[in-house]
């Protein structure tokens, strides 16, 4: 019964885990603040289209914006209050983007209006996909890809296997771990709903072996069920990437340019599963999410449930932001982005906020590449990162495309492994952005 894979995917790196700060902390709630900023584009794909006007009163959970296309999703109000503005606001990526500003009603109870559970068992797949889009759910692991898009199966495709990602391979982050520990039943419930409606034969939850208690909790929650397996995996980064997870669990490779669905699989994060359960059982759309607030710049590290749209500053101040903090990173330390402004809001795809002091920041002095090959050993997509970096620096875009630059998922393992401090991922990302711009202008 107890199957322990010590196998994993090929290559990858072993960053220090640094999870001890928050791993033992039960999830708490961030108190409501008075102002929320909700960009219309928090997900991959088309921005949402506003449906409420400035000045309107909104209830917690009300729809603010409807999907602007199929690859787009719904945006809900995280609080009861008034729409103060629909204007450009700071996005964590540094751009000013159209966003709703909601002023919370200080006298509201902020109770979510009670809704009848949805009769999902009787649903057709199309109706289910539409409901998931209505829930505003996106991949909560960080990529923020609208979840319902994965569930629309093309003609003749079948999802045989639902794969659930509980790896949480980024250092510092522990919110998925706490979720599996505290709400394993919600995760299993979400899997039950999704796998039934997709017609999946089997579901596998992949959890890294540094979370034995989470594995136990999930196994206890699905005790006696034969259609759900919980598999422990060797600890390695980037195991949470869907292609790596599939390789680790089943020793099968998703070919470049293909999707897991081409192997009959769909990969979802554990938080997304809990989000499905919350929507279908309690009628709660995606209006808040769990994040980890940690790092040496934080006095009281925490795992928090934060309403989407809360400003980063409010979250950090609640957790005691030290004056010595010099850098705040949104997401994990490997793939996350340093923020230029603390006024940016927490988005649907935000998995953590990390504050670093001067001592904890690694100021890279860049040396010439010594062709040591560490980055090749690190790259789990089996690319040649030093070559990509060299071509990117030279602006040789056609050669970059030939060297499969678009297969790079920017996990950061190569930069982590580089002894010369070459900003490999940053170079690759820049070149990919230039490629996208060139494609757009043609």
């Amino acid at each position, binding site marked *: 019964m107890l199957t322990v894979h010590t196998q994993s995917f090929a290559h990858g790196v072993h960053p220090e885990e640094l999870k001890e700060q928050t791993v033992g902390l039960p999830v708490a709630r961030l108190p409501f603040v008075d102002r929320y900023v909700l960009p219309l584009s928090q997900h991959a794909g088309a921005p949402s289209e506003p449906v409420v006007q400035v000045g309107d009163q909104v209830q917690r959970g009300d729809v603010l914006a409807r999907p602007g296309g199929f690859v787009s999703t719904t945006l809900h109000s995280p609080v009861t209050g008034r729409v103060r503005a629909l204007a*450009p606001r*700071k996005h*964590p*990526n*540094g*751009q*000013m983007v159209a966003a709703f500003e909601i002023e919370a009603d200080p006298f509201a109870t902020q109770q979510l209006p009670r809704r009848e559970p949805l009769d999902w068992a009787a649903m057709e797949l199309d109706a289910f996909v539409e409901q998931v889009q209505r829930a505003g759910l996106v991949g909560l692991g960080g990529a923020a890809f609208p979840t319902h898009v994965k569930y629309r199966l093309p003609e003749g495709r079948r999802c045989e296997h639902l794969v659930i990602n509980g790896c949480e391979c980024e250092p510092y982050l522990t919110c998925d771990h706490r979720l599996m520990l505290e709400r394993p039943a919600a995760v299993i419930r979400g899997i039950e709903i999704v796998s039934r409606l997709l017609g999946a034969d089997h579901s596998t939850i992949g959890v890294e072996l540094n979370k034995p208690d989470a594995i136990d909790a999930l196994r206890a929650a699905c005790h006696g069920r034969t259609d759900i397996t919980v598999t422990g995996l060797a600890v390695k980064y980037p195991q949470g990437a869907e292609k790596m997870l599939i390789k680790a669990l089943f020793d099968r490779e998703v070919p470049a340019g293909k999707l897991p669905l081409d192997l009959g699989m769909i990969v979802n994060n554990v938080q997304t599963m809990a989000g499905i359960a919350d929507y279908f059982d309690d009628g709660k759309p995606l209006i808040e999410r769990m994040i980890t607030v940690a790092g040496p710049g934080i006095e009281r590290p925490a795992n928090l449930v934060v309403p989407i749209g809360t400003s980063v500053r409010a979250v950090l101040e609640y957790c005691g932001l030290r004056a010595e903090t010099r850098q705040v990173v949104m997401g994990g330390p490997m793939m996350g*982005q*340093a*923020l*230029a*402004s603390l006024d940016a809001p927490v988005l649907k795809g935000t998995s953590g906020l990390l504050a670093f002091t001067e001592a904890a920041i690694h*100021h890279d002095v*860049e*040396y*010439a*590449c010594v062709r040591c090959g560490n980055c090749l050993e690190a790259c789990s997509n089996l690319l040649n990162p030093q070559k990509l*970096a*060299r071509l990117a*620096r030279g602006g040789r875009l056609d050669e970059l495309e030939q060297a499969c630059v678009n297969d790079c998922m920017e996990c950061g393992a190569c930069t982590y492994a580089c002894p010369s401090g*070459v*900003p490999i991922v*940053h*170079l690759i*990302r*820049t070149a990919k*952005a*230039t490629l996208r*711009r060139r494609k757009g*202008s043609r």
Partner: protein
Amino acid sequence: MQELATATVIMGGLGAFFGIGLAVAHRFLRVAEDPRLEVVCDQLPGSNCGACGQAGCRAFAETLLQGVNKPSRCSVASPDIVEAIAAFLGVDPGREERRVARLHCAGGLGAARQVAAYEGYASCSAAHLVGGGGKGCAWGCLGLADCDHACDFDAITMNAERLPVVNVDTCTACGDCVTACPRDLFEILPIGHALLVQCKAPLEGEAARAVCRVACDGCGRCAADAAPGLIRMDNNLPIVDYSAGGPARANATHRCPTGAIRWVPGGQFEAAPAPTLTGDHLD
């Protein structure tokens, strides 16, 4: 002696055979090319910059011979060369106005508010990706010299404010800086269009002045003061349209509270060169 004769006959025969072949090919497969093409190509600068809208200098020369373009369409060639080509071809040199690259931002280090320090790879497009660099303004010049590196004519230098200074004499309006800038701040404009809006932030009032001392705050005074129709306000920014309005005069800039719209007959900024950043030419 015999071997020598055989070799001579064989080699001579082969030579005669291929010679006749080439002569026949020359006679019957000949492509008539205007002899003037070579001459014009030699006179053109040969930088293949593409500013004229053609694939290169030779393609441009072909359009000259066809009479599609006027010689002055080449913005790299000096007036003397343009005259010489026109005289040689016996055509009108045309009166294309010189065009140069103009930057729609004046928010250098001293003017734009810095909210963070950017320490990553020193390139504008790289900084644009992560948090948009250290400036509070999400539209302004990032100052990391992508345009300088893209310019093939050394017409752009970074000044001490970390703003690109375009040398209007050497700028050929090829448009490489326009493509290089991740924030689309460059525009190729006729040099006579001296009324420049040096800001691209669509912010209004206090919000604009909070991010930059020389930001346009969208007050609209320039539009009111200029000749009717010359300037219209769009998304809190003045748009100067030389074709639509009356004479462009400097008085449109007189009441601008921040100096975002300026009368710039020559180069845009003070040209004191800044020390080049290190570390960006490794590998």
